[in-house]
């Protein structure tokens, strides 16, 4: 989230699209009902299904799964054509006036530089034109035909209301009504928030859907302001924290990135990430990358990380490609993975194409499960009848299942989608012999370290030198780890302005990432968390809920990264002179000598606005990008591509280019491509989702939740029910080209057949919560049906739009 849960109450308009907040995040959705009740806000819901969010919306519109870019691209065209943009905001705080290289082109759904064999782009033309001074060329009048504004307008001119109705199936009058409501927030006094979740991420073009939403918000001046923002609701309780801490194939803590194998030179690795400003007097905060990186390496390798060995640069593995889940399971299916560890993760249920997962897991030599509950993955080898029809005798994988504590049995912090790190406390001991994950990871590590110390082995240095100064080597305390990722001074730190003064003594906790240095004198395991455990103690445990301005900031409750800031880009809530655009909902402002207000300014605290520094301080431009440059795999502007399993078989926006039907830059493995189905055999569009009564594959183990939704069902509209001859409460078989499920049919008015390009397209709703372990009635894993293809950037699987066939069972 750029903003936070309570801030939603400041919105005048709420758009829920690509998510279902009422259903998946009910207690956060409370702030939508508050905005409605006390701020006269209106709620718009755009979703393939009439959801629980829709049930309390002022306006609901249906949409075909996977076509959100068309709806939003049309909206961009509408805002530009009707000049419903916050001009002062976009001219000063975005790249609309920047001139783009002449070589950049877009034709028939493909951008310049496409290589069809590699399914990827040479992105060299996707950039701004630089002047002789090394800075970007701009045209503040926005008249230049090569400025981003002109290109944007041209790009989305094809996205007409008629095209939206044709591709999305959303009635044109509803489309225009919603666009008009949204356009009303282009004035500085009205704010719209966008709330989205997996309904946008789980598509082969998911990242671009989100970008399109963000572009709408920028045009309206809704980023950085109270009641605005792009708010990813997010899934698990610490999915934000684990991402922040870099637990992904290509990441390091704090959104630093692992080096690619070509980056053999440490200085070049740093320089590529510490980008110089593209315009005069911009902060370009990533210029501090070296400080973050060195402090991180000191936290992990302590005294073994030295200037001479480039802080242990060789200890880090180097990437040849990303090894995300889908890539790893592909390798596993080819028999190239021997061991796998699942810590609180149930991939047999959570990953696409269960049949492939079953076959892949069976090729492992060993599988280690750490979990509080008996997951399906831990029992993938067990024959559970139709729900898991395998032969244990043929599965040679050794499986270890280690019982872990749950939340109630441990201390520690979680980071929510508002970026708040909140500390929690243990209330009871775990059952039986269950242990915390900390003990298990430490137990494994100390055994491995001992073995490498005693027997040697492949490159033991990063293992033997790993800093492990915990009081109990077998069981590090959460407090020790929190202090470590927050960070401390390793030597007395002199004041940069007066070397006779010591600002931090050796061993003292640091107050924030501004104190980090790149000379090895500071340590911080995750720079964006620096200060969470500061010189005054554990700020994550703070419980002061006071909110003096009434705007909902509660900045003394817990601790928020970065720097306890609650609303990102909040400098953009003020005009270029530093005055709030909307004085009624002031977050920060310039008082003549400093920035301050209800939030921690997202800006250089003493920077005079007259200097022209932009509010998007992490970008070298200092402004927000409509033109993504080379940051996205499939192009600088979001373009609609059909789901890989499309009911149409063509892309109506680019009908004459077969390479541009589905995402031209998405990675698809050969076996997975062969497993795609065609509309002729699988005519119905399926979408998977969560119900409010359950949490993923977890609460089917929880009796109270099993009572609320005991048995697997699928939702179909009345027209489809009639077509296949099934009554409400009857049973249906739903098949894809990869497998099938059998479930109760819930026949509902909440899913309607849509007319797409003159044809009737039925949507089938598939809640995901059942499986073959737990107290709820046994069911089929919904991912028996889903295709293996990820978003072109994030590799998030396309669970929200694929093809099935529904039959009476």
């Amino acid at each position, binding site marked *: 989230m750029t903003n936070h849960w309570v801030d939603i109450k400041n919105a005048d308009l709420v758009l829920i699209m690509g998510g279902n907040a009422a*259903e998946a995040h009910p207690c956060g959705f409370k702030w939508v009902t508050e905005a409605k009740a006390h701020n006269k806000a209106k709620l718009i819901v755009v979703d393939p299904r009439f959801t629980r969010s829709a*049930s*309390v919306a002022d306006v*609901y519109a249906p949409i075909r799964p996977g076509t959100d870019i068309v709806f939003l691209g049309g909206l961009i065209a509408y805002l530009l054509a009707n000049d419903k943009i916050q001009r002062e905001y976009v001219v000063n705080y975005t790249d609309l006036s920047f001139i783009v290289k002449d070589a950049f082109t877009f034709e028939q759904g493909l951008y310049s530089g496409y290589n069809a064999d590699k399914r990827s782009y040479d992105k060299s033309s996707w950039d701004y034109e630089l002047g002789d001074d090394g800075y970007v060329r701009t045209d503040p009048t926005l008249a230049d035909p090569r400025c981003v504004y002109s290109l944007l307008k041209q790009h989305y001119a094809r996205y007409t209301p008629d095209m939206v109705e044709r591709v999305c199936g959303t009635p044109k009058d509803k489309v225009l009504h919603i666009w008009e409501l949204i356009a009303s927030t282009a004035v500085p006094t009205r704010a719209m928030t966008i709330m989205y979740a997996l309904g946008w991420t789980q598509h082969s073009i998911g990242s671009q859907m989100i970008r399109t939403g963000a572009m709408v918000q920028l045009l309206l001046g809704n980023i950085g302001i109270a009641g605005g923002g792009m708010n990813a609701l997010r899934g698990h309780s610490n999915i934000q924290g684990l991402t922040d801490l870099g637990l992904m194939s290509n990441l390091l803590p704090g959104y630093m990135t692992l080096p690619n194998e070509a980056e053999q030179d440490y200085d070049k690795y740093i320089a590529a990430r510490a980008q110089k400003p593209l315009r005069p007097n911009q902060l370009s905060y990533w210029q501090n990358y070296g400080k973050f990186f060195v402090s991180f390496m000191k936290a992990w390798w302590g005294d073994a990380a030295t200037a001479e060995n480039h802080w242990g640069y060789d200890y880090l593995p180097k990437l040849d490609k990303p090894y995300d889940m889908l890539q790893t399971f592909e390798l596993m299916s080819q028999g190239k993975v021997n061991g796998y560890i699942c810590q609180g993760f149930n991939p047999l249920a959570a990953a696409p194409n269960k049949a492939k997962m079953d076959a892949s897991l069976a090729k492992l030599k060993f599988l280690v499960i750490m979990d509080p509950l008996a997951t399906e993955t831990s029992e993938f080898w067990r024959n559970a009848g139709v729900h898991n029809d395998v032969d244990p005798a043929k599965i040679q994988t050794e499986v270890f299942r280690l019982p872990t504590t749950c939340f109630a049995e441990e201390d520690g912090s979680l980071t929510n989608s508002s970026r708040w790190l909140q500390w929690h406390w243990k209330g009871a001991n775990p059952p039986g012999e269950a242990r915390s994950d900390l003990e298990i990871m430490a137990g494994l590590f100390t055994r491995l370290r001992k073995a490498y110390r005693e027997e040697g082995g492949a490159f033991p240095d990063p293992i033997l030198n790993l800093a492990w100064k915990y009081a109990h080597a077998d069981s590090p305390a959460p407090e020790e780890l929190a202090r470590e990722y927050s960070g401390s001074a390793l030597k007395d730190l002199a004041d940069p302005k007066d070397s006779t003064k010591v600002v931090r003594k050796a061993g003292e906790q640091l107050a924030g990432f501004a104190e980090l240095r790149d000379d090895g004198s500071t340590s911080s395991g995750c720079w964006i968390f620096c200060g969470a455990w500061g010189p005054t103690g554990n700020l994550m445990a703070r419980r002061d809920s006071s909110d003096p301005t009434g705007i909902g900031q509660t900045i003394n409750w817990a601790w928020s990264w970065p720097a306890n800031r609650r609303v990102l880009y909040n400098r953009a809530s003020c005009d270029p002179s530093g005055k709030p655009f909307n004085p009624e909902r002031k977050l920060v402002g310039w008082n003549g000598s400093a920035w301050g207000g209800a939030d921690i300014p997202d800006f250089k605290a003493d920077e005079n606005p007259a200097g022209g520094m932009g509010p998007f301080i992490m970008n070298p431009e200092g402004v927000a990008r409509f033109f993504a440059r080379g940051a996205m795999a499939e192009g600088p502007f979001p373009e609609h591509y059909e789901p890989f399993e499309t009911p149409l078989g063509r892309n109506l926006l680019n009908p004459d280019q077969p390479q541009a039907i589905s995402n031209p830059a998405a990675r698809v493995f050969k076996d997975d491509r062969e497993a795609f189905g065609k509309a002729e055999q699988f005519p119905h569009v399926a979408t998977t989702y969560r119900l*409010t009564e359950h949490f993923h594959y977890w609460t089917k183990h929880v009796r*109270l939740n099993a*009572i609320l939704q005991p048995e697997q069902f699928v939702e179909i509209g009345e027209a489809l029910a009639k077509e296949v001859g099934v009554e409400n409460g009857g049973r249906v078989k739903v098949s894809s080209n990869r497998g099938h499920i059998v479930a109760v049919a819930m026949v509902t008015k*909440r899913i309607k057949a849509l007319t797409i390009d003159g044809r009737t397209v039925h949507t089938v709703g598939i809640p995901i919560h059942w499986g073959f372990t737990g107290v*709820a009635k046994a069911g089929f894993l919904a991912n028996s049906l889903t295709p293996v293809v990820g978003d072109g950037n994030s590799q998030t699987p396309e669970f929200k739009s694929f093809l099935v066939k529904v039959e009476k069972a």
Partner: protein
Amino acid sequence: MALQSLDIVRRSATTTPSPQAREAHAGEVAKLIDVTKCIGCKACQVACMEWNDLRDEIGSCTGHYDNPADLSEHSWTLMRFSEHETAAGDLEWLIRKDGCMHCADPGCLKACPAPGAIVQYANGIVDFHEENCIGCGYCVTGCPFNVPRISKRDHKAYKCTLCSDRVAVGLEPACVKTCPTGAIVFGTKDDMKQHAAERIEDLKSRGFEHAGLYDPAGVGGTHVMYVLHHADQPQLYANLPAEPKISAMVGLWKGMSKPLALLAIAATAFAGFLHYIGIGPNEVDEDDEAAARREMEETR
């Protein structure tokens, strides 16, 4: 606000008057359910079961979101979902939290023949005391909202207590506390009516011209009220009765049968005593009871 015998203003099948000294000087309590804010998440169902240490059966899916399918001795509240298409063709998913309405004039209490099995407190809560319940089911007949349920296991009647144990120590009921969207609120009845008025104004500004409060006069008003978008059509909300009244049979029992019965008590008491100590408490034969209930319902 401790609740004990002195707070009981009415008691079923009891001819001696209840104590009258204590009154709800700070106001009677009420729960307001704003159906227009409800997202049907069922947190209230869980909180109810969790707080009251109840667990219903793990049932099956019958093609509806209503799970469990009905109120029971374990489910004292549940959500009832109705899909409704307006004249303009827009879909509305009307979700009503069902459960005891805590009527000011409680039909269950009036119908109950077991002394002290149903009581009404000065603050408005109508509570069942199952240790006194004889399982006859007359509370079911007497209830205009079809709320009490007789357990097949122990033949006792069960329903929402409005968390009398929480309210007694000054807390809100469990369902109220948990409600994520603030669709369920709790306070004095006067405050709840005022809150409802504000909600209704907001709904009218959003085009729900018939938005209104459901606090039916036929049962003397209720201590559980609804804000409805379509107050003119309560039956849209899973057959919420438009004009609930206490069943005629209860009037009969109160008007004619009860004096007759009381006269008969002297004669039957001694026999009853022998029966009780010899065989145990009497229980109504189930078939006979079911037949009687069918006939009663036909006369409604």
